[in-house]
């Protein structure tokens, strides 16, 4: 049951949210997506407007279904994309998400990936670039049910801080009740490699171009392998240039 009450920051899933902004769009409608047994589907969520955005996708992947979801969140003052995915036997889920924020923006991606059947695979790649006083969050829970042996679940979460005043939150969580499970998660918050920047600049690239080039590559990791990878990267780049 979905509660209609506005969450508070005491609710773990909304711990870093801009509740005031959220109130304006609450309650958030659930967007149901079902990919039937053996079928493949893909979807893009691109939020480049400046208004508040809150979305909640509820995805059911039947046995052997494949779903490729790409998210570009780059613009909203508050942008939240929550994704709940349930994978049946042998299903495959890919999430590639990029968040770009500056000023006082708050962007977040909250995922709950449930491996309900055996031999399902999930891969999440989230790349966040934060400037100014912005906040970027990834909360990702992976649940592997009893009997979901052969699960292969992967989370790769990286955030890049362009200013020391920005904040990145990352909380990967694993809850595993099966025996034969491969679950990998990598999580890193960092700054642009100073050696790399100097190297590029020493070859004639102005600082903003050197940063853009390095960040472009960083963001592209979220869109690698997507049908619309090039268009997504271009839209991300447009925002990146504004931020730099």
């Amino acid at each position, binding site marked *: 049951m979905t509660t209609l009450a506005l969450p508070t920051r005491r609710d773990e899933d909304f711990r870093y949210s801009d509740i005031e902004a959220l109130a304006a769009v609450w309650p958030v409608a659930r967007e149901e997506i079902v990919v039937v047994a053996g079928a493949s589907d893909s979807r893009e969520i691109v939020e480049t407007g400046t208004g508040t955005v809150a979305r909640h996708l509820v995805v059911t992947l039947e046995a052997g279904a494949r779903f490729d979801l790409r998210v570009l969140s780059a613009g909203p003052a508050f942008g939240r994309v929550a994704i709940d995915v349930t994978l049946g036997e042998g299903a495959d889920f890919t999430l590639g998400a990029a968040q770009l924020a500056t000023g006082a923006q708050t962007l977040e991606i909250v995922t709950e990936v449930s491996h309900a059947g055996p031999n399902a695979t999930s891969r999440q790649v989230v790349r966040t670039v934060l400037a100014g006083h912005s906040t970027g969050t990834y909360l990702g829970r992976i649940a592997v049910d009893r009997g979901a042996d052969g699960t292969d679940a992967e989370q790769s979460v990286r955030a890049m801080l362009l200013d020391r005043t920005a904040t990145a939150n990352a909380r990967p969580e694993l809850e595993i009740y099966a025996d034969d499970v491969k679950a990998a998660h990598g999580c890193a918050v960092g700054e642009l*490699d*100073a*050696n*790399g920047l*100097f*190297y*590029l*600049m*020493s*070859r*004639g*690239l*102005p*600082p903003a*171009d*050197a940063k853009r*080039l*390095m960040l*472009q*590559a*960083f963001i*592209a*990791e979220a869109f690698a392998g997507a049908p619309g990878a090039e268009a997504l990267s271009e839209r991300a780049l447009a925002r990146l240039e504004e931020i730099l």
Partner: protein
Amino acid sequence: MLQITDLHATVADKPILKGLSLSINAGEVHAIMGPNGAGKSTTGYVLGGRPGYEVTGGTVQFDGQDLLELEPHERSAAGLFLGFQYPVEIPGVSFVQFLREAANAQRKGRGEEPLSGGEFLKLAREKAGLLKMDMDMLKRPVNVGFSGGEKKRAEMVQMGILDPKLAILDETDSGLDIDALRIVGEGINAIMRKPDKAVLLITHYQRLLDYVKPDFVHVLAGGRIVRSGGPELALQLEHEGYEAVTA
């Protein structure tokens, strides 16, 4: 072309260069040799403008400009090339993409038209050929997965594309096998041995100097040049060691 006068520099507040003076004219090849810790790499980085290398005294004039006033990319646009001892890996950024942007940024700085994709590839292919480097390698991410020798050859390809007036090459010979050393040496000669260009080789060993014949050899010790001479000085160093020569 380059006049370094009484240069003092610190790294993390530790004085490394203590009164370095050196003058390089167009058409000349100079070699700076010296023991570990003498300040060789610091010299390269200070001239390249690396953050963290603080100049505390002295002046550097490059082609009539105050080099120390310029940002690293402005130094590059002015015609300075710094070849790295340890070229940096940049995942996800291809050589071709990066070098075309770099070349065009420099051209823009000089008020020239940018190179088209086709023009750039032609230039890159020509310079890669000089260094016997497969063009496909330049489509890969910058230095990622390259061997030490391949990285150094890629540095020279970049130098060829950027066509600098002055190349400062920091231990470009390290990590090279005998064949690669010859290829790199010949590449340096082909690209830089011209009347309007100059080279500053920073090296431990004589071996690169067999291919790129220096006009002047300087011994750097304790952050300053303690001895200068012709090519024979490098041979003497090789035979007698730094201690004997600098004593």
